[in-house]
């Protein structure tokens, strides 16, 4: 039983899945469905955001998310500005609010922000009139990723309710895992988090998920298997011992994928570490929808911009 779509987004921002209602999620997914065909036109552009200015404020390195937003903005005919600042400007004395005030002096309609620290978009949203879209904040949320993941699942399964979704990797540091958990819980899916306890947050049940310490039992009957990128940075060497050991016990291999449902799809938010969390045979195999995720990301981001623009112009004409 699909959730009824909301008429519009209720807030001026999209800072997290935790702030969206199931109806709003449904609305974004349905709108993205319509906008997906823009990419199939010979002229891949619609005038919806003509005259609007979007600032892409990336205070943490990103290639694919930033490109995806830029493509979405351009297909909607918005003017885009890229503002790549390292958060080290903090050490130069500029505060988050200073950055915001500088940007607002250019009168943008939207600010797409990625920030290395949780809650930065939420704080910005309170102090600037522009619509804030969270492109990933610290270890907190990555709402557009979760929406494009849900959209991709819907292309195979039609309805999210009742789906069994495995999410495996460094859960504790993954905003993708968290946003997916929030979204899938709201839409009635079952989420299984897989990681050794050293890579899961405390009281993880708070997120409405079922935690597993090993991959194999979690895969049983799974409809979706989402693998997260594993990084072995020096400071995380206390969390697990080596890439080899991670692969041996926690990676998605063809043999392990056989434990999932026969129709199961394989997802990855990218960039992949082949041979670490995912075997190439799976990543490039027939059940992989990893490249569909990339295509769908543009449609989701277009949908959010489009819906926020509509909401704002209606609000403006009300006053």
């Amino acid at each position, binding site marked *: 039983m699909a959730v009824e779509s909301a008429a519009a987004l209720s807030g001026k921002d999209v800072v997290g899945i935790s702030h969206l209602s199931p109806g709003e999620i449904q609305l974004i997914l349905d709108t993205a469905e319509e906008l997906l065909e823009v990419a199939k036109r010979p002229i891949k552009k619609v005038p919806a955001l003509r005259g609007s200015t979007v600032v892409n404020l990336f205070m943490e390195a990103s290639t694919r998310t930033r490109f995806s937003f830029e493509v979405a903005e351009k297909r909607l005919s918005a003017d885009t500005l890229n503002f790549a600042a390292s*958060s080290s400007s903090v050490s130069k004395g500029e505060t988050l609010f200073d950055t915001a005030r500088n940007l607002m002096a250019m009168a943008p309609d939207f600010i797409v922000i990625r920030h290395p620290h949780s*809650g930065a978009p939420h704080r910005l949203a309170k102090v600037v009139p522009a619509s804030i879209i969270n492109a990933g904040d610290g270890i907190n949320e990555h709402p557009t990723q979760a929406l494009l993941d849900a959209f991709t699942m819907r292309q195979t399964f039609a309805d999210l309710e009742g789906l069994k979704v495995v999410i495996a990797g460094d859960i504790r540091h993954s905003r993708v895992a968290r946003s997916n958990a929030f979204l899938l819980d709201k839409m009635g899916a079952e989420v299984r988090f897989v990681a050794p306890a050293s890579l899961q947050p405390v009281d993880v049940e708070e997120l409405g998920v079922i935690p597993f310490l090993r991959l194999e039992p979690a895969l049983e009957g799974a409809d979706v298997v989402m693998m997260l990128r594993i990084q072995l940075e020096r400071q995380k060497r206390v969390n697990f011992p080596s890439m080899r050991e991670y692969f041996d016990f926690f990676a998605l291999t063809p043999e392990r994928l056989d434990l999932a449902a026969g129709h199961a799809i394989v997802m990855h938010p990218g960039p992949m570490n082949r041979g670490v969390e995912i075997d190439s045979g799976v990543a490039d195999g027939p059940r992989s929808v990893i490249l569909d995720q990339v295509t769908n990301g543009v449609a989701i981001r277009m949908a959010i911009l489009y819906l926020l623009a509509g909401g704002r112009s209606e609000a403006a004409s009300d006053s």
Partner: protein
Amino acid sequence: MKRLLIRNGRVIDPSQGLDQGMDVLIEDGVISSISERLTAPARTKVFDAAGLVVAPGFIDLHTHLREPGFEHKETIASGCQAAVAGGFTAVCSMPDTQPVNDDPSVTAFICRRAEQAALARVYPVGAVSKGLAGEEMAEIGEMVAAGAVAVTDNHRPVRNSQLFRRALEYARSFDIPVLAHEEDIELSDGGSMHEGRVSTRIGLRGMPTSAEDVMVARDVLLADLTGGRLHICHLSTSTALDLVRVAKGRGLAVSCEVAAHQFILTDEDVAGSGYDPNWKTNPPLRSASDVEAILQAVYDGTVDAIVSDHEPHHADEKEHDFADAPFGIVGLETAVPLALNRLVHGRVIGMMQLVRLMSTRPAEIFGLPGGTLREGAPADITVLDLRALKKVDPTSFKSKSRNTPFAGVRLKGWPTVTIVGGEIVWQAKG
């Protein structure tokens, strides 16, 4: 001779077991007489305290005055103004200044500045190790000779257990307590709030209670080993309180304090703030069950002192995101009303216990003058209006900083007059 007679007040003095209507006569900065009915000698200034509580001056064992080095956040003068406006007649200033108070010249500078301000008494706390680096012991004896009343490495807890053992031993020669901010920095792991259900929900890196508890356990064991005087700063967890109970049960010289905000706010308030750094403290605002445990320990006497943990920060510094913003909130001008409102009006403890926790015990455990209204004691007095109802208004703070999570909160019970050395140094308006 300079005289001040405080008339008709409700005198509460745990050191003498007094809670009754009395008059207090002050002569030349010293309490000269305390009795049910005193007649004013000639040329005596009279203050009518009818309807007010008259208590020995409140002593804040944990204040960051920021001077020298961070005068944009607070100076000794502005901090002392905030102290007396908050009902404190004395404060202990932490050594994390620039330069660090690890040297008698810095200690002496702080004392001199406090004398110039001539408001609250300031008792400097020196560093345990040079530069707070946790490697070499600072000149503890020299600092005590210059006016220091205790030592601590503050927010940079001594990781080297051997150094901490030796400091507890060495400090015995000078009969001062060693203070400990209890935190295993590796376990805190760059976190910015209490680790638990709420941190998992809102996606902030957490600081587990065990980061505090393992260090409390270590230091209690070292206090046992050394016979040194250990005072645990702004304790915040249920388990740490149990460890203090064990220490006290064994008769160790272990005491502890809690900050006023720690028995009022929880990690849920951090979530409610929308990532506002005015809710970012260290130790972090804990769970509701830790708050319950603190209230129980305040009631049963496990807690020795209530402190402000006044940590002023410039407004600019709280304009960052939650992780980048510094830890700490101001407390000198809110700690007393918060304690009166929550503990006394909230029926956790009576006024006698409150005065014990904010005056008598602090004086005892740090060996400070005051904490009593006995004849011959310094005339440091805090006068309270238990019925006063006011909202916290940061714009009226005497402190240079405004970083408080309590703006606009209505509290019942406020300080109304502060007397230091027989002088009325502050009086509430209206």
